[in-house]
């Protein structure tokens, strides 16, 4: 359940932004959790619901983009799409692949209000 720690990190990033930009509440938060980021999006939502009450994130709509995984296949010398780290290369079936995308876990942007 490391998603609870991650949710705490998300709240901290938003509160740091609040300290810089002086807003009162967040109506909309957009996150990015790649398919290979090691994050269970359902658990992350549950954790955000648990930690946001009492913060400026309370009541905010939260959207989570889930970019697909991409990897470099050394045999094909090409970029390929994978859904998980255990997937073989869809072209050659080999496992000589290294993830290159879909590993990110980021706060993208937020809509904030002063009222």
């Amino acid at each position, binding site marked *: 359940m*490391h998603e609870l720690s991650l949710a705490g990190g998300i709240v901290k990033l938003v509160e740091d932004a609040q300290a810089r930009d002086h807003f009162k509440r967040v*109506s909309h938060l957009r996150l990015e959790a790649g*398919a290979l980021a090691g994050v269970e999006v359902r658990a992350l939502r549950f954790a955000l619901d648990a930690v946001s009450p009492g913060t400026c994130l309370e009541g905010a709509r939260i959207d989570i983009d889930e970019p697909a995984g991409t990897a470099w296949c050394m045999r094909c010398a090409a970029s390929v799409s994978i*859904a998980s780290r255990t997937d073989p290369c869809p072209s050659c079936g080999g496992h000589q692949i290294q993830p290159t995308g879909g590993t990110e876990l980021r706060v993208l942007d937020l809509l904030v209000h002063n009222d």
Partner: protein
Amino acid sequence: MCVVCGCANPTATPPEQAHVAVNASTGDLHYGAGAARVSVPGMSQARAIKLEADVLGENNRIAATNRAHFASHGVTAYNLVSSPGSGKTTLLCATIEFLKQHAPNLPLAVIEGDQQTSNDADRIRATGASAIQVNTGKGCHLDAQMVADAFGRLDLHGHSHAHGHGHAGHAHDHHHAESLLFIENVGNLVCPAMWDLGEAAKIAILSVTEGEDKPLKYPDMFAAAKLMVLNKTDLLPYLDFDVPKCIEYARRVNPGIEVLLVSAKTGAGLDAWVEWLMHPQD
């Protein structure tokens, strides 16, 4: 709105159906197979703030500080990760005893992570090595701040201070470890994969009583590890554990992972293991 997943109507569309793939023949559930949820335009009268900030950025910043701190003290740190019961602490005790025989002047210390009890730190201290127990409470992993706090309390840190903090201008020879810090993470093959502690390498310990498909079941951890250590090899004659298959599985998720076989109980393979620890490759 459903508070668990944010789906619009939990009665009409049970959350399970909204984002869980069900294998029709076996009934297996796979979370995380759902379509990407994309963003929706915002509201008027609102300001948009672009952050594009890494959620783990704060941890990674502290981990980078730890890494620099370790380097300035000539400390090579290893983050030992595994499921509970793989024999991490027994392997550490055997490693410490081995080093006492073969490198008696090598400074070393251990940071022990568990949810509760100081049992593991007590076992390490019984060997004569210094150890700090970190109890994470409800936490399922160590983070960089915990390691920073614990490192500051270790003799390894104080000992190095006697030689001057920072070693300004002194380039350490990183081909040979000057002192070792073992960080035994909370027994958990999922969460610790994501947290950089400032270590030179993550080392995944897998005991041969666990089943050779662990690297496929927990790919994030084996992808993050530089070395996989197969422990309890003295039990191989009594088990069906397929060592080549396990290595093949590990290399599916991490083509570059190195593999060592050891038995902490009999000492088999400890020489190669210690050789690896003493000569960290960049």
